[in-house]
């Protein structure tokens, strides 16, 4: 009944792994805990015997450039990601998404690691990472590994991570090259559950009027997050114009089955919003791709 018995503030990866794998009961890593703790309190998640807080581990607190990789530690509070000039330059969509997670106080505690590990199909931070095809650095009792973000999800609220054996260290994103840019947006409903009706992130590479490359993530578009690959394929290599956009919108209709959720939106409304958001995020990223400095 009590949310947890032991709360461990781990200061190193080894310490965290030790407490996770040697707990006297269930064990689970915890970031800001802004979702997990509420889920336990409200009976949507079993109480956890040992919660291992990973946010004080130096490796998870890093936010830095590593060669041609932008590394975002899994334990960095999302408000720092929102404000980080590095993130704003290299991955503006991630900054935009992080600025919309929860409220201001929650953002001082919540982490991107937790946002991804929670595995909700429309988590803002996670969707933005998807557009970058982020690689996820994971540590487990069997050693470190790198996994594509898409491999982390089993179903709504279920990740493939084994709670008492492993946790996310951080996210590897490609740094921004000339002609590349990103954008994130979402539509909420002012009533009811605090989840977006639809959100969307795009990363693209522009060469003059041509879309050299594009990656699009839309949430929620299924039980697990996936990229809108059919739409990407349609746009890749094309000149961006209104005709192309119309076809891209059609491709969303043809390739993505939106769901009706009773309290949030009908599938029809989601389809409509997907067109609105597609135009908005592509439009913004397209513009940004010509700018050296990031302007918001």
């Amino acid at each position: 009944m009590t949310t947890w018995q032991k709360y461990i503030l781990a200061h190193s990866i080894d310490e965290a792994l030790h407490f996770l794998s040697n707990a006297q009961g269930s064990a689970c890593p915890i970031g800001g805990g802004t979702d997990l703790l509420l889920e336990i309190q409200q009976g949507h998640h079993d109480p956890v015997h040992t919660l291992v807080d990973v946010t004080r581990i130096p490796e998870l607190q890093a936010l830095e450039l590593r060669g041609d990789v932008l590394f975002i530690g899994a334990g960095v509070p999302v408000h720092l990601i929102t404000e980080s000039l590095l993130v704003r330059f290299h991955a503006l969509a991630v900054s935009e998404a992080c600025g919309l997670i929860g409220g201001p106080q929650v953002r001082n505690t919540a982490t991107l690691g937790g946002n991804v590990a929670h595995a909700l199909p429309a988590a803002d931070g996670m969707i933005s990472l998807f557009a970058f095809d982020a690689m996820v650095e994971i540590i487990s009792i069997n050693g470190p590994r790198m996994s594509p973000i898409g491999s982390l999800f089993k179903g709504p609220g279920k990740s493939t991570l084994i709670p008492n054996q492993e946790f996310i260290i951080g996210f590897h994103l490609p740094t921004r090259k000339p002609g590349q840019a990103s954008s994130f947006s979402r539509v909420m409903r002012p009533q009811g559950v605090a989840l977006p009706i639809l959100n969307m992130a795009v990363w693209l590479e522009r060469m003059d009027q041509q879309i050299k490359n594009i990656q699009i993530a839309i949430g929620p578009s299924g039980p697990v997050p996936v990229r809108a690959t059919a739409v990407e394929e349609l746009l890749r290599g094309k000149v961006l114009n209104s005709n192309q956009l119309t076809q891209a919108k059609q491709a969303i209709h043809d390739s993505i089955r939106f769901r009706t959720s009773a309290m949030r939106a009908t599938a029809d409304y989601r389809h409509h919003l997907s067109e609105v958001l597609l135009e908005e995020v592509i439009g913004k990223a397209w513009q940004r791709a010509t700018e050296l400095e990031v302007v918001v």
Partner: protein
Amino acid sequence: MSTERMINLIVNGETYSIAEKPGEMLSDLLRYRLGLTGTKIACNEAECGACTVILNDEPVLSCSYPAAKADGCTITTIEGLEEGAFTPTAQGDPVPLHPLQEAFIQYGAVQCGFCIPGQIMTAFALLQHNPSPTDEEIKYALKDTLCRCAGYPTIIGAINAAAKTMHTGRPIDPPEIPQSANPHQSVGTLHPRQDAVAKVTGKAIYTDDIFFKDMLHARVKRAMIPSGIVRRIDINKARELAGVHAVLTADDIPGEHNHGLVIYDWPTMIGVGEQVRTVGDAIAIVAADTREIATLALDLIEVDIEPLPVVSDPVLALKPEATQIHANGNLLKHIKVRKGDVEQGFAESDLILEKTYHTPFHDHAFMEPECSIARLTPEGRMEIYVGSQIPYSDRNQVARTFGWPEDRVHIIGQLIGGGFGGKEDIAGQIHAALLSEATRRPVKLLFDRHESLLVHPKRHATQIRVKMGAKNDGHLVAVETELFGDTGAYASLGEKVLTRATTHSSGPYEIPHVKADCYATYTNNPPAGAFRGFGVMQSAFAIESLMDELAEKTGMDPVELRRLNALRVGSITNTGQLLRESVGLTECIEKVDAEIRKLSGGDPFSPQVMEDQPHKVRAWGFAVGYKNTGLGGGAPDKAGAEVELRRDGTFQVRTSSAELGQGLPTVLRLIAAEELGQAPERIDVLLSDTDLTPDGGPTTASRQTFVTGNAVRHASRALRQMLSTELAEHYDVPPDQIRFIEGLAQVNGHTLGLASVAEQIYANGREPLANFTYWAPSTKPLGQGGDMHFAFSFAAQAAEVEVDTRTGEVMVLHMVIANDVGYAINPLGLRGQIEGGAIMGIGHALTENFMVDQGRVITDRLARYRMPPITFTPKITSIVVEHPVSSGPFGAKGVGEIVLIPTIPAITNAIYNAVGVRVDHIPVDQEMILMEMKKKTTVT
């Protein structure tokens, strides 16, 4: 766990090392182990921001921040804010408050006060990082720090003013709030609240901030099934749990098993063989050493309930096959209003419109969850500490439960962290008292937010059909309304609320032929009762929506149509009441009209496409409303008050009336100050104690300024007369030569301290004390004609909305509001009521929807029931209209409810004017707006 782990932290500059407890959040550590109760818990689910503290320079939500995670951290709470801080004053003598605290007081940003520590801490962190924030930055930072009084405009003003003072070192710029048009010495002028300093420093004590030695903690086992018969209750395992001191069921109630405000139909607990009528029904109650143990015990109570079919719709409730919820059937009351002959009226009409509207349940979502502490005194009396809107009713209902005389129960009213009508019914008072009696120990029963959402009565969900007949020139000829009101499982104030909905259902208009029928029905939904607006919010949405359609059909300006039909002095209402005075509706209409025409360049109701964002369309919408002051309908409406000159020369006003944040103590203080010729600061107001304060009646129906205000006025006059007489006799001068000023009496050239006047009266064997019971003008029951109410307040509102035509999203940008309040006794508090009411109306229009599915509550967390955050704050232009009512104190009438009544239709009418979509359900569904817009474009 043998080795105790320690949490080391610095709180407000003090270093602590505290043993870790499993599952403990930082807010619990601060409140219950360090005694820093300024940090409030309002939702306990990281939604509302009331628990915000500063942790290593950043604001965090302490209710969901593990205490153990704070190890090594530095924390500042509201109690630590004033350390070394001071605000300069014009006189140069510093106030020992942080500029934010001082600004919150001066701007009237403090109402119920429960959210204020969180607001100030969040604002404090903002100013640390950003010393000169824009309004938009303030809104962004405070987005999730909710205020149900919705003092957002004043909060923004206060933060701006504090920021400026922190830069310049100059005094806080005073707020731009006008006095009454006719200010007296005290009434009609701006005065801060007497409890404001306590509320901004975290020293204000609400019920959950009180602790007694050996106090137990109670929890309630609830049915969680909306309809059924209890077949078995087994409490043995729960009783055996270590730390549990009592588990009680219906069998343990010595006296009356039911409670209720009008009808005693609400069981204190449901016994075996008895009927469960709603999910929140209590089955058993537990008192234990800790809340955690009590919670564990709930899970050990075994309950078998045989389900019955659920009645979840007020219309279907009247079908013969529906489950009978109460012995006398599912119809609580059929309420009728008849004036003239509607059939004749429709026959005479040039055009007839008819439409049906729906409104949902709304939750008050007061920031402070219900809390009661019961304590059996050594003399065998039951003391109950509770924030209640009707202390004497609590006393009566608790006493009945025990079969005791009423005066064996002592209600000691506490600060109330918001009420809005939701703290009129019994919540935990009786349960706590039963457990205290059983255990002989003090017992605290605190609802969590989930329980609060399930249990206390809501605003009635309604279905309202309006049929309207008018002449081509816009004159209304006939209005027929049919209302179905869902009063849920228990009557509460359902009959009264729905009577008000019915009598107000044809709007503030003079109409020859009116017929209204309302069916107040029981269902298995949570009970519905009083909520600010008291039924009139619902019917105003219906009638004012159809009035806009009539304007369109007749080709009239919507303002002109309303002005043409508006009630005015000499009008007869639909219940047959002649309005003899104080009908400021036309002035409200004209003032709002002039303002919006000025703002819009003359054409407020036509859509304006934004040049830079062509997908955004703006327009204004207009609506009016009225609301009775006082109980009316033949109910005796009285209030008692007592005023005493104390031995120290200050005065105390005493009445049981409740302060929910609306500012009643300031109103009473200003009235007493005026009558006694004293500065308001010399008047202390004591409320809500059934031993110490006379019965002020329920704090409901916008009545307290009028009724208790009058009682205080008369009691103050009586005391003044007594003092004058005493001094006149003593000094042998005519009483009219005696004057009172600033703690002094002036007699024939002598000046005498009031303290010595008090001594002198005591020396003569008397008490310097006056009592007065004020009886409001008598009223007639519905159906008898004549004065059903002794006063009405009127309002006109206009809302400017912006609709995003790509998504259907709606924002309210600007509201222009005029309220006829009779007289503005307390302009600072009035501003808070007006702005807060409008923002609550915006919430009802756009964000709030208490959802129930087959009797089960969907919106059982604050995350699902969304009250408007600060980001929904529009620009508000407020115009106060003062048409005095002769029987009111200084002409004042009620204001608490009228402020939100026209808001909702003003917004929905604006949406129509912007994008051509009519709204007949609230809250506004952005998806519906969009789909209807798409349909229109497909057709054309």
